[in-house]
């Protein structure tokens, strides 16, 4: 299905280099240790009375200081090396082609912005940064793509993200790496990396009931969100042009209206109240499915882009 080597993203290649570094350090230490262990054990075996046992090392502290410092320095180097890649991978400020992933026992559902949906498969274009925004409907899962050397847990009640930029077309494994119940081992799928025009062809060949934003608009109507957020009698913050903007909050801080903010505002509306508004909005927790939530957020995002266009 896929080859393990060479790896398929620049991050994966960096991770493989890190692996080599770790392996070299380990091998060096093990070789030194096993050599000394065997050498001492054999040379100073009780049967070998002729071994020179005079002048034993008495003062131990400078040996201790030496090997403690040596290990400490080596460890700190490895820490920095791994940490820097981790910050790059999971740190803030990601952008890219967004795909929403919903995990549930025991399948992966992916939704593209154009409204295309797939199950246990994820089609992505070559050489584009793909940003997955992942949420779970039930228990904790973990989205694991071994060929890209990355995984991240998908946690119910919140969203996590994961970005990668594939450098080679092909089909790769997708695993659930966090134990999630009976069919955990069957919660697997395929990552299909395609040339860009193949990908576009694939997108347009899918059966779509409107873009994700259009689906979100339908949910928005069904739930009657416009009653307050539209031009009705109840005063609620306007959603047009909201996405990506700073929002002054009632506790004096400033929030950014990003994915997590929008999501939280629907599910836990009282957590962050926009300054100057009453905390009136009811929570939609349990009243809106993960899929619908994603669609509504996509719709609100699309309102921002509409507002940008004159």
């Amino acid at each position: 299905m896929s080859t393990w080597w060479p790896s398929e993203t620049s991050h994966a290649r960096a991770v493989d280099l890190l692996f080599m570094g770790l392996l070299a350090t380990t091998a060096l230490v093990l070789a030194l240790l096993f050599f000394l262990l065997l050498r001492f054990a054999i040379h100073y075996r009780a049967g070998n009375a002729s071994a020179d046992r005079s002048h034993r090392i008495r003062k131990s502290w400078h040996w201790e200081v030496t090997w403690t410092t040596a290990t400490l320095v080596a460890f700190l180097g490895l820490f920095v090396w791994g940490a820097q890649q981790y910050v790059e991978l999971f740190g803030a400020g990601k952008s890219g082609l967004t795909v929403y992933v919903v995990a549930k026992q025991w399948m992966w559902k992916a939704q593209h912005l154009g409204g295309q949906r797939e199950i246990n498969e994820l089609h992505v274009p070559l050489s584009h940064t793909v940003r997955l925004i992942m949420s779970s409907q039930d228990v904790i899962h973990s989205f694991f793509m071994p060929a890209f050397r990355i995984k991240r847990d998908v946690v119910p009640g919140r969203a996590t993200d994961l970005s990668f930029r594939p450098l080679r077309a092909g089909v790769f494994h997708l695993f659930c790496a966090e134990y999630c119940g009976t069919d955990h081992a069957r919660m697997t799928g395929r990552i299909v990396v395609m040339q860009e025009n193949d990908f576009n062809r694939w997108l347009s060949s899918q059966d779509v009931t409107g873009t994700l934003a259009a689906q979100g608009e339908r949910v928005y109507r069904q739930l009657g969100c416009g009653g307050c957020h539209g031009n009705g009698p109840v005063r609620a913050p306007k959603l047009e042009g909201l996405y990506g903007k700073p929002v002054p909050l009632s506790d004096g801080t400033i929030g950014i209206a990003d994915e997590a903010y929008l999501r939280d505002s629907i599910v836990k509306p009282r957590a962050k109240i926009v300054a100057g508004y009453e905390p009136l909005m009811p929570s939609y927790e349990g009243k809106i499915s993960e899929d619908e939530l994603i669609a509504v957020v996509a719709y609100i995002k699309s309102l921002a882009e509409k507002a940008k266009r004159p």
Partner: protein
Amino acid sequence: MPETPAFQFVDLRQQHEVAQLGMWVFLATEVLFFGGLILGYSVYRFMYPEGFADAARHTQIAIGSANTAILLTSSFFVAWAVSIVRLGADRVAAILLAAAAALGCVFLVLKGIEYKVEYDEHLVPGYFFTFGGPNATSAWLFFSFYFVATAIHALHVAIGIMVLIFIALKARCGAYSARYHAPVTVAGLYWHFVDLVWVFLFALIYLPGRTS
């Protein structure tokens, strides 16, 4: 039994020291037992400050304060009993310990009344839980912690009462003396600890959100 040390000890002094140290180590364990709850509480209070303040406002601060005073006083009685049993006044000590146990019972009765009030107000997390206003979910979390923490604490109080009664009866029979009184000291340490936990629970449960 009282005047000679158990076989594994050299003398009564060593036995006494061992008993005390054992209790202190046990109390360190207890701190972390409650510590798990305190971490959970702190995390959710950090996440939902307004919801927790709102929910805490619905607790019975009058009963809570009265209960704090009761436990502090019972602790005082126990400390008093410990200090005089060493002088040989074991009869008086027995009375003081019994009084402390009685105060512990009053604490439990008040706690029960408080639970009843909360039950009537539908504040017990479960099917009938109702909490008006915007903070229903975080109030549920608060009351989950409230009931778990106070119930575990009440269990400690109940155990403490039994220990105190047992020690009081033994003291009444003259089991303790100026030379041998380790059980009284150790039981006292446990009772004071139960008191100390309550002091923190009181600050975390009853005091937030009283101003708004």
